[in-house]
């Protein structure tokens, strides 16, 4: 805790952003996010949208895995459900964008609830493997329910339109994607100040003890699955509007591993961790590409880019787990602590 921030009331103690400095920096960040699209080039806007979608989905997984302790490797498949829901609604019914995104979340939530049912009976790694099974079964449905999903060829999504304005450039999409992500982050951060969020944390720490304390396990585990896949579904819907084409191969198992890696690298059980992890893991491949571009014989080195990316991806997971298990969020905390206490050392 920072010096000189004595709390006098309970509401101050419970506040999400408890100090003046935090609020000031938050305003700076908010202004930055609003001004960003006016100054950034197309490539950076593209990255920003991608990062925002990944942050939303990673935060969803963080609710389930980081806070409730139910490991899931199905996040990408739930995103797929959302993306297909948006594609089908947009193409066949032409319903408004906001409704489509909510329906995408709802559809993914229903699927997530079904997948979550085994969670009362199986735990830990068995559950992780059950979610792998679910994601393969969903992939099969995407590829073979041709009448709705368009089979292996997939679906193309018309651009989102709000008030007659087609969101077909990165600049315009930014204004759809970023507010959604910020809203979902605020929702997740507030969730853990409520009874439900506290119940999730209790289940993570020891599910049997939580049940003894009067938390109905099945209901809360399912709720966690539902919320997490709702986030994934909305993120998937945004993904569909962003890439405008949805195929079964868009959401491979590797993508689920990516999200799990993102929250591990960022820090499980911390909203900030989910954000940092998703940003970091999305940007690392781009930074690698940049670095290869600087090499003297860049065009030859490009051949090695894909395998090096795969290695770096694995090495990041392993390295963080061994050397910094609490992830980037912990590093961030240490840096902040250094400045709080300066010129003294901890």
């Amino acid at each position, binding site marked *: 805790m920072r010096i000189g921030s004595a709390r006098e009331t309970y509401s101050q103690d419970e506040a999400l952003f408890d100090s003046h400095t935090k609020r000031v920096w938050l305003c700076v960040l908010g202004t930055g996010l609003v001004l960003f699209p006016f100054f950034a080039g197309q490539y950076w806007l593209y990255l920003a949208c991608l990062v925002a979608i990944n942050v939303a989905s990673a935060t969803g997984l963080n609710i389930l895995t980081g806070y409730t302790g139910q490991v899931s490797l199905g996040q990408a498949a739930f995103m797929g459900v959302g993306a297909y829901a948006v594609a089908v609604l947009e193409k066949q019914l032409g319903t408004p964008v906001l409704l489509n995104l909510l329906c995408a979340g709802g559809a993914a939530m229903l699927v997530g609830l079904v997948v979550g049912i*085994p969670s009362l009976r199986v735990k830990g790694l068995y559950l992780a493997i059950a979610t792998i099974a679910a994601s393969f079964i969903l992939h099969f449905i995407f590829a073979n329910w041709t009448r709705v999903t368009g089979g292996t060829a997939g679906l193309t999504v018309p651009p989102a339109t709000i008030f007659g304005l087609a969101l077909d450039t990165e600049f315009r999409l930014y204004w759809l994607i970023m507010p959604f992500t910020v809203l979902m982050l605020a929702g997740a951060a507030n969730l853990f100040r409520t009874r439900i969020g506290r119940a999730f944390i209790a289940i993570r720490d020891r599910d049997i003890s939580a049940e003894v304390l009067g938390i109905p396990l099945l209901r809360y585990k399912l709720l966690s699955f539902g919320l997490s896949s709702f986030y994934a579904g909305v993120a998937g819907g945004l993904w569909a509007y962003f890439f405008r084409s949805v195929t079964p191969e868009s959401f491979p198992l590797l993508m689920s591993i990516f999200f799990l890696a993102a929250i591990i690298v960022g820090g499980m059980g911390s909203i900030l961790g989910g954000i940092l992890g998703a940003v970091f893991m999305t940007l690392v491949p781009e930074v690698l590409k940049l670095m290869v571009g600087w090499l003297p014989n860049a065009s030859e080195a490009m051949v090695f880019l*894909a*395998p*090096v990316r795969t290695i770096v991806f*694995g090495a990041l997971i392993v390295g963080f787990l061994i050397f910094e298990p609490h992830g980037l969020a912990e590093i961030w905390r240490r840096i902040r602590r250094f400045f709080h206490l300066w010129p003294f050392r901890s």
Partner: protein
Amino acid sequence: MIGFDWLMLAEVSFAGLGSGGLYALAGLAFVLIYKATRVVNLAIGEMLMMGAYFFFAATSSMGWPIWIGIIAAVIGSGILGAVIERLLIRPMLGEAPISVFMITVGLSSILVGTVELIWGADQLRLPDFMPSDTVLIGEAMVSPKIFYGFLAAVALIACVLLVFRFWRGGVALRATASDQAAAYSMGIDVPRVFSLTWVVAAMVAAIGGIIVGSISSLSPTMGVFGLSVLVVVIVGGLDSVPGALVGGLLVGLVESWTGTYFGGEFKLLATFSLLVLILMVRPYGLFGTHEIERL
């Protein structure tokens, strides 16, 4: 049923049992690691792949004879197993199972990347070393590669089981698996048993990889085989050797039947549906230990 092709069913079943033998072998490598160290090793498919690539390097690139190639691949994989255990798994002792699980996920990514970096992402062919005359069981024809692969897998499984029944190191491993603290107090060097397990499992996986690689072909995507192995061990029970064997044959049969009668795209669906079914009915697998949790 009139007109049902029983001969075809027999052939398909034999092919299924054949590939099931390989699943059983890979499942055995998985169960060895899980029993002794409680690590769920998602990189098992990649360990198979590394064995096959070592074999490829020794025979095709270096031009060594087949037998030396096999021995070199087994030794190479054993060293790799020891290195993995020492560098990645040992520091994670006592951490949450999910962390160790994610370590193996990262490991599989590192191994795939390394293979692509060294040998490229294209498919490669291993040199043929198995007899190629068609095998007849009764009237049913069986592909020679699958038949001899199955025989090799069975022989190896028998070897491993005998070794663990009678060799001192094997007994130490079983003691560690049943009670770590007791094993420690009886003077068993538990960390060394852990290393040993990884070495042996990597060696078994290497032979499995060589057989799998020579039946089909060699590519960095071979690790997908590991997903089916995961189904095998869950169906059989994570900590049960007979479970891995039965599960392997069962999954092989199911894959082969659905692949023939419904189409290739149903294979994964069938295995994973089997997995879900087993998890619902017997969460600890057919032969696994039902662990009772205490507060």
